[in-house]
């Protein structure tokens, strides 16, 4: 496969705890993906516009502050509004188990809690992104 997976990793909202986001970004890069890390305090608008501009396959949101429902909902809404709802949305952080099904119902493809191995995230993207390419007739 010569096409490289492009992923945007973002920290939405006010929370500055970026250790997880950075470790994941680096692991994806080490696995041969192209990673854009947007830095801290991004609004959903900034995240979606960067994702479209950078033509990414997937967006990963890292949220530890408890505001995950709000941010995932907003990012999903803006993706749909801008005709980019096929960009995979995944995430992680401090997210209670009972919120995971709610996030999946919103269309979040995967939620990775604390203690997830970075390999698991790599495997997920290597499986899900090519499926998306096929669906688009790109692969």
């Amino acid at each position, binding site marked *: 496969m010569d096409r490289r997976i492009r992923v945007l*990793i973002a920290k939405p*909202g*006010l*929370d*500055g*705890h*970026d*250790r997880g986001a*950075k*470790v994941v*970004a*680096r*692991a994806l*890069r080490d696995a041969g993906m192209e*990673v854009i*890390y*947007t*830095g*801290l305090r991004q*609004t959903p608008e900034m995240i979606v516009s960067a994702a479209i501009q950078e033509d990414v396959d997937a967006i990963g949101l890292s949220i530890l*502050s*408890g*505001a995950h*429902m*709000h*941010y995932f909902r907003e990012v999903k809404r803006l993706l749909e509004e801008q005709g980019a709802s096929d960009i995979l949305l995944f995430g992680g952080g*401090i997210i*209670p*188990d*009972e919120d995971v099904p709610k996030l999946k119902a919103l269309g979040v493809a995967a939620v990775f*809690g*604390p*203690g997830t*191995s*970075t*390999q698991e995230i790599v495997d997920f993207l290597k499986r899900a992104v090519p499926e998306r390419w096929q669906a688009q007739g790109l692969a």
Partner: protein
Amino acid sequence: MRKKHDWLRETYQKSLEKMPERPVAHRTLSDIAPEPLYTPEDIGVLDPEYEEKRGYPGEYPYTRGVYGSMYRSKLWTMRMFAGFGTAEQTNERFKKLLKAGQTGLSVAFDLPTLMGYDSDHPLAKGEVGKCGVAVSSLADMEILFDGINLEEVTTSMTINSPANAIWAMYLAVAKKKGYDWKKLGGTIQNDILKEFIAQKEFIFPPEPSVKLVIDTFEWGPKNVPKWNFISVSGYHIREAGSTAVQELAWTLADGFAYVEAAIQRGLDVDEFAPRISFFFDVHNDFFEEIAKFRAARRIWAKEMRHRYGAKNPQSWMLRTHAQTAGVSLTAQQPLNNIARVAIQALAAVLGGTNSLHTDAYDEALALPTEESATIALRTQQIIAYETGVTHTIDPLAGSYYVEWLTDEMERQAMAIIEEIRRMGGVVRAIEEGYFLRELAEASYRYQQEVERKERIIVGVNAFTDEIPLKVPIQLVDPEVERVQAERLARVRRERDPKRVEEALAGLRRAAVEGQNTMPHFVECALAYCTLGEMMDVLREVYGTYQEPAYV
């Protein structure tokens, strides 16, 4: 060579005059009565470096504890961090914690407050009351401390960039209730340097941020003499992925940076240094953590005395709060966290901490519930009252390993401190991205070790058979946002607009002219200016800070 009986007669006795021994049995379960302290004399060995490196509790270099009688007289303060939702909800939790035997309050604020936004600001959406209590004006602060005697409790507030404003609100509550500022005890975290290094809750660029901190150094001792106006924090550095040695080195480097900035302003080191306090993480590596606390006290004492010329012994004492490592808690098999927290708390106590927060077992999932927070407090009480580790001071002193490790951590930390000094100090190192790079390396290396199973985490990468368990989760009521917005609207409606305008103008003038901002913050708080209004004035004067997105 100073002898133990001299220390007993002088320092220990003096300490008991201030605070007698606790009226509990300082005897083992076999009825052996340990002495307050053991030294090489007690086992008939020679330790030629004893005085220089270890010394006695309550005496320079304080390796064995800052107070003469330590836990024989007074246990560490059991101070549980709490805050969620509205001021009313947190006030209720505070009262329960005090009733459960807690000895000090500790306030967690929500993210909008930490970032200096009012609860009704667009950027606050979805975050209000989530990981702490929302405080946007004096009205919230009055409710938060309603029915609590501020002269009797000590209050610690975890607030950094807006620390001056939040502290001013607390002092305004005290003033309105008729309490004497001279009798108030507590701590504001107010450590902005570690925000640039690790936690990232900064608003203004480093230089004006440090200026605001030094305003409290200058104003605090004269007005609220018993208040710790800074808690130099390693906790967040460690949680962001540093090693224990980096945490030790960078925290002390931050402390020295504040001392230098205050001396540069012309303040007398012995006037402000006694009110500097610290805050360390306590992680899983048991002996490394104990050594870290002992090395921290020794480095601080030596440097304060010899490099910064402090003459008052209180300026040499590193007094510290500790908190068990949130980052070490697992979402998998969460009940295992009770064991982790107990072991970490024991390390903090054997390291001689002065104050401790123990994490609740469900913190990798959500905010603690009342039950999980109580178990965490009980964990401290079990260590304090049942294990006997408080019978004698610094019981691990003289362990070949602990003493060697204390020396080794001091050596490695000093090498890093010197390296930062060569770079031109902490602010220069921040601007050059030094800390970001080092943290990214250390946390990535750790993650790789875990994934290669060179480091085992029980329940995560080994022993993963899970018994299904439903952990009750504390969720924040979405009503908080509405309640806060209504209260803010009422505050803005009912206050005296002229007084608000004048107070904000005074704050702006002080910021522009480089005067001390604290008196103006107090006036703003009393006038019911909102947190956002105060911070906006400073945002205009100082500008804001964006860090480079480095991976």
